[in-house]
């Protein structure tokens, strides 16, 4: 490495094959208690439905399983290891107490259909979290059912649709800024809407006059991310809301970036009609290598009748219950009540913070992003000079001259001991470097990041090949994604 880093070194790392390659008949990691009822004749009970062979499931022992997954885990980067500045992902600290409370017997083993009288604890959690989220968003009613942000969007657009249908005015289109996340248009399509693109202006914000022009009676809603995916707060949010409302449209807010707002401003106060939250971003529930998430949807009162069933209610005797009798509801978007385990964690996070902690969190998140922005200005091109909130988006314009693109810089960042930022999103920035540090980074880590990024910028000038061929310090070098997609090998198969 030309520019040595203070952040990371190389160290010996265990190899490990696939489980199937360690399997041998007769090895086992299980034992069942003795059966306390009579044995059964499977053939007699099941007839043709009886399975004869269980295929290639592995046979291994307990120690091998511990080692297998422990070794695998050491190949991953993680928030617990260092800064994970994926823009739009809000990779923040996942508090350990959340994991403890989510595993408490009565919560972890609660059955979704157990009688209400022995479900008061879970229902209380649903209710308390709902109340907190409503206060935080400034909205009036909420559903916790959606399993992730994208399903929150879907639930929201279903409610938009129901709203217009109830008015006898089923509209056809959803407006979506060109900076939006892919789930926004994909969701609109899933709900049967046509998607109309909205161009951003030179500041990276919604072009209000263009919006005015595009807005009409066909448009059901605008899906707006605020701050948007450039990390820019839509300063003309009130005008945007007015334009939408004037023509009977609704303002949907993608709340993926709520980490920039909590405790400082409430979407319900600036004209949003409905929005989703990502508990796995703003509210610290762990990403788990790709999920689970949780995407509650909060709405203004007029949309309350359309919330999915069931909703939590307080019954006459003061106990909590679930109300399924919701004739105007859009229905159900998944079985049971949502990703309950994530509610427990999000609520624990809110408790740990309190009002002062939540506000300080937001302030620190914005502080961190601006510190990075300042630190990298000059070294990387900043396509939109508009003030940043919780994230900042650079482009690879300066480096592209040397043939080095955002993905190359990202790979090189790995050698410096960091997980890369988000590459190639938002689409309005060609060659984007989308950086979101979150509030969880100490200044020390930010300084190392800035140092690494500046060092890479120098490398691009002095020795672009070094960057183009990165990473150099990982157990595998750059992987061939093209071949993977061309000849997909999606599962292991026995040799020969």
């Amino acid at each position, binding site marked *: 490495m030309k520019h040595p880093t203070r952040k990371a070194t190389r160290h010996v790392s265990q190899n490990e094959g696939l489980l199937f390659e360690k399997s041998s008949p007769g090895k086992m990691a299980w034992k*069942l208690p003795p059966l306390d009822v009579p044995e059964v004749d*499977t053939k007699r009970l099941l007839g043709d439905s009886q399975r004869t062979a269980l295929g290639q499931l592995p046979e291994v022992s307990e120690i091998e399983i511990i080692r297998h997954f422990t070794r695998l885990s050491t190949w991953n980067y993680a928030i617990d290891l260092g800064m994970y500045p994926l823009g739009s992902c809000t990779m923040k600290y996942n508090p350990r107490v959340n994991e403890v409370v989510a595993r408490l017997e009565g919560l972890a083993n609660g059955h979704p259909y157990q009688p209400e009288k022995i479900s008061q604890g879970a229902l209380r959690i649903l209710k308390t979290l709902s109340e907190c989220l409503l206060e935080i968003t400034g909205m009036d009613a909420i559903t916790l059912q959606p399993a992730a942000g994208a*399903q929150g969007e879907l639930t929201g657009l279903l409610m938009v649709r129901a709203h217009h249908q109830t008015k006898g005015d089923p509209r056809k289109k959803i407006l979506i800024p060109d900076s939006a996340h892919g789930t926004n248009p994909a969701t609109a399509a899933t709900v*049967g809407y046509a998607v109309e693109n909205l161009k951003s202006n030179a500041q990276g914000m919604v072009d209000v006059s263009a919006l005015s022009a595009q807005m009409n009676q066909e448009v059901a809603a605008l899906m707006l991310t605020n701050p948007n995916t450039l990390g820019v707060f839509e300063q003309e949010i009130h005008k945007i809301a007015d334009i939408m409302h004037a023509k009977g449209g609704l303002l949907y807010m993608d709340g993926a970036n709520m980490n920039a707002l909590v405790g400082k401003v409430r979407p319900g106060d600036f004209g949003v009609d409905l929005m989703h939250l990502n508990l796995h971003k703003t509210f610290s529930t762990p*990403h*788990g290598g790709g*999920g689970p998430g949780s995407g509650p949807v909060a709405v203004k009162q007029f949309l309350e009748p359309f919330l999915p069933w069931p909703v939590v209610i307080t019954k006459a005797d003061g106990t909590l219950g679930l109300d399924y009798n919701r004739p105007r509801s859009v229905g159900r978007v998944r079985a049971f009540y949502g990703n309950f385990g994530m509610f427990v964690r999000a609520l624990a996070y809110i408790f740990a913070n309190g009002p002062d902690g939540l506000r300080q969190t937001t302030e620190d998140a914005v502080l961190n992003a601006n510190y990075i922005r300042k630190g990298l200005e000059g070294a990387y091109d900043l396509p939109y000079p508009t003030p940043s909130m919780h994230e900042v988006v650079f482009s690879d314009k300066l480096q592209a001259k040397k043939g080095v693109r955002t993905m190359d810089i990202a790979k090189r960042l*790995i050698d410096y001991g960091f997980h890369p930022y988000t590459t190639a999103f938002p689409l309005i920035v060609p060659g984007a470097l989308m950086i979101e540090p979150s509030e969880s980074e100490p200044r020390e880590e930010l300084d190392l990041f800035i140092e690494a990024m500046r060092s890479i910028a120098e490398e691009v000038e002095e020795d672009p090949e070094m960057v183009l061929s990165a990473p150099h310090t990982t157990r595998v070098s750059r992987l061939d994604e093209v071949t993977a997609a061309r000849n997909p090998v999606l599962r292991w198969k026995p040799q020969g």
Partner: protein
Amino acid sequence: MRYLPKSPADRGAMLESIGVGSIDDLFAPIPAEYRLTRDLKVPRQMAEAEIVDWFRERSRENGDNYAATFLGAGAYYHYRPVLIDALVSRGEFFTAYTPYQAEVSQGTLQAIFEFQTMISELTGMEVANASMYDGSTAATEAVMMAARLSQRRSVVVARSVHPEYREVLSTYATHQGMSLLTLPYSESGRLDLKELERAITQETACVLIQSPNFLGTIEDVGAVAELAHRQGALLVVSIAEAVSLGILEPPRQADIVALEVQSLGVPLGFGGPYCGVIATRQQYVRQMPGRLVGQTTDRNGKRGFVLTLATREQHIRREKATSNICTNQALMALMATIFMTIYGKQGLAELAKQNLAKAAYAAEQFGKHAKVLFPGAPRFHEFVVQTGEDPHAINNRLLGHKIVGGLPLKKFYPELGNAALWCCTEMTTRTAIDTAAGFISESERSGKSAPETDVEEVAR
């Protein structure tokens, strides 16, 4: 605040280096009139011990000390080997993001590749994806996928599919202009094949069944497949109880299998997070929703794994994507992977066999006093019992003995009268079964039929 790694001095120095006077300067882009000038009305900052206490109290209110449960119905109480939590609690797994950057995510990627392989084996399909939200959305997305594949818009659904899965399907389908036709179950508790034959047309995109179905009976997948395929329709099989595949022939004749893997090591957790997954034939993979991991090589020819076929997905294809799903249920898929590895080929079969035996014993005991419905078809570990008395009343008495009885079915299948769905797993002791059988016997003997209004709605 203890999660925030900054001292006041750090903050001051950073503001200075940014060149602003105060933190509020950074919030200037937010129009002043909207800015919050008060504290949020959420509970005050709590100590860790207080948080634990608060949730302990909730846990206690949530039946943390129940001796046995006979609830199943799409959420199953199996033993979770301790290895699962020991391993998924490693920060490298649970605090990692989606493995976009393969070189520092090989752990997650290889584990998903193993998951895809095991699910393929378990379901008898050729490929499986990395996960869906849950069984209900997996079934729904599988139906959408079938519609894309067949280019047709009508769906035939068995009424014996989990009622909540059907509700989800209906929510999604409504706005896609798809028509749903729901078909009844026969005497045997299986989808009525005669009705099915009549219902399938050249317009039918697919038939959706569940097996074992919500009433506990195992569908005749082969016969349904034949009827569907004869008309060019696809067969989608939903499976809510993955452990059943340890002893039940997988639906190899299906075109798409939508599986809920909760019972493979994912906690009941009051209904979520669970983990759906879609498996199908290789040829259909480009219409499959969700993430996929594929094997490839690095620049030195070394094996490695990457997310692949992303052109199906929303972040590339936007409104033309196969689904809007992004965040999925990766950690639960990892739990299932570990569970399947622990039990393996032999253990999963033995586990399923114990479930079968427990339910067979229970059905026999209950059957001595009350009517066990649908005796004509095989079942795995759930069965419907019809009593003279409202099952809520029986359950209420059982609750007093710290036993949670079966799920009363009146809400979902009013035509079955005083019926409840009972489930036994390897966790159900003979003692619990005998106790429950005793209560049923007592209820039947005393000819009870309490008016429903007296009875608390013990199941929702």
